[in-house]
């Protein structure tokens, strides 16, 4: 019973704006620091250490940014939808703020995945775009992000806006398994699953490692950028409160 009580206490503490602001502020430099280290190592092992691919030559190296960006586009959406559900069920203001802060970050990763994929497609498959299942559903994901941001900005009251957006985000979750399984369910120009299969991934270790390192780096970056946006929003909403005034006096 004790452990549940302490987890519950931590959960409630985290939801308090000054506490979250302080804790996220403490973690932020370390998160970004580790991100930079991983980024440098990922870039080095991807661009220099990894060998030339037998089939694709050097162009395959775009994979080290394209795939992590695509993974992030889906991961961020799930975070957005889950925090949206939390915001709807428990009416937590912090969950609402986290949810809406995810949207621009997720949209930018989706955009990055689409464009790097397009750039990769030109030399490899001689096309900037193809309307297959995976590319179409990823484009749809970008539209969903835009819809979320548009709806949030259209509603004046922020709490009502958050609740409306949470519903939209949850409805859009159906797109995520479509994106993920699209290469298994349909014949697509896009490559089939190589990493997330359950047996041994069919990608060479020297290419897998930079890929995973970049993926982790991007995840840390997401958390860092998210913290920055959430902290700003907390400051803006609570600017009349004592803790903000006290904080700003010391700056």
């Amino acid at each position, binding site marked *: 019973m004790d452990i549940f009580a302490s987890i519950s206490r931590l959960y409630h503490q985290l939801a308090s704006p000054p506490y979250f602001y302080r804790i996220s502020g403490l973690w932020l430099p370390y998160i970004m620091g580790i991100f930079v280290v991983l980024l440098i190592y990922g870039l080095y092992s991807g661009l220099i250490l990894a060998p030339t691919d037998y089939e694709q030559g050097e162009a395959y190296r775009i994979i080290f940014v394209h795939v992590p960006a695509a993974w992030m586009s889906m991961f961020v959406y799930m975070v957005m939808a889950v925090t949206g559900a939390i915001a*709807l069920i428990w009416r937590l203001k912090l969950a609402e703020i986290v949810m809406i802060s995810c949207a621009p970050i997720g949209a930018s990763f989706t955009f990055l995945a689409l464009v790097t994929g397009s750039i990769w497609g030109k030399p490899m498959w001689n096309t900037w775009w193809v309307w297959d299942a995976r590319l*179409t559903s990823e484009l*749809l994901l970008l*539209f*969903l992000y*835009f*819809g979320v941001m*548009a*709806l949030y900005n*259209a*509603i004046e*009251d922020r709490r*009502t806006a958050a*609740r*409306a957006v949470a*519903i*939209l985000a*949850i*409805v*859009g979750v*159906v*797109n995520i398994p*479509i994106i993920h399984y699209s290469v298994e369910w349909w014949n697509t120009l896009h490559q089939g699953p190589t990493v997330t299969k359950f047996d041994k991934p069919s990608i060479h270790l020297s290419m897998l490692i930079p890929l995973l390192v970049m993926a982790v780096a991007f995840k840390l970056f997401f958390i860092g950028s998210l913290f920055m946006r959430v902290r700003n929003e907390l400051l803006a909403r609570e600017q009349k409160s004592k803790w903000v005034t006290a904080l700003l006096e010391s700056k």
Partner: protein
Amino acid sequence: MFNAWLQIFQRDLLIAFRRRSEIIHPLIFFVMVISFFPLAIGDDKVLLQKIAPAILWVTALLATMLSLDNLFRSDFEDGSLEQMTLLKTPLSFLVTAKVAAHWFITGLPLILITPLLAVLLYLPSESISMLLLTLLLGTPTLSLIGAVGIALTVGLRQGGVILSLLILPLYIPVLIFATLAMQNVEQGFSAEAQIAMMMAILVLAITLSPFAIAAALKVSLN
């Protein structure tokens, strides 16, 4: 409980029949836009035949989207929507009555007039029956998904523009499967898989969207 459902269903149908424009306008839109294509392309039978399934589906989709505003707006403005949320019967159950009525008013007339338009576009009769099947499975799905969108935006000023941004992405899978089914039939293959997927999407929409619609309405009524 079913009494309330039936009453709402009948009330919406009655209102629509009294205000015929609700039924006629989307139909006129549908007919006119379809006519634009042979006018714009010229009487190219081969080309028109090829694009007929696609433009019929896209235009039906757009006509449905335009008609969604009627679903909740007048009830929202005169307060009957709020009254519905106060009833003992769950709102998610009651909204299905409104969406069902909406399909009768919008989707069904679209399906009934499609054969005429298909003939205007030189579509062969085997394709017409597949087109009707896809519309039969697809338009209820469009009404259900569209209802989620209009429920979210009914209280907004610029609601119409945002509505399209919200639900057009969600309409894309329905459009893709419908037109894939048509292409398969045209090439002589079986469209079983696509029809099965459209049925699956319809069932998913029927079971899940009422909750989303009800939640969205409660948010809009704030």
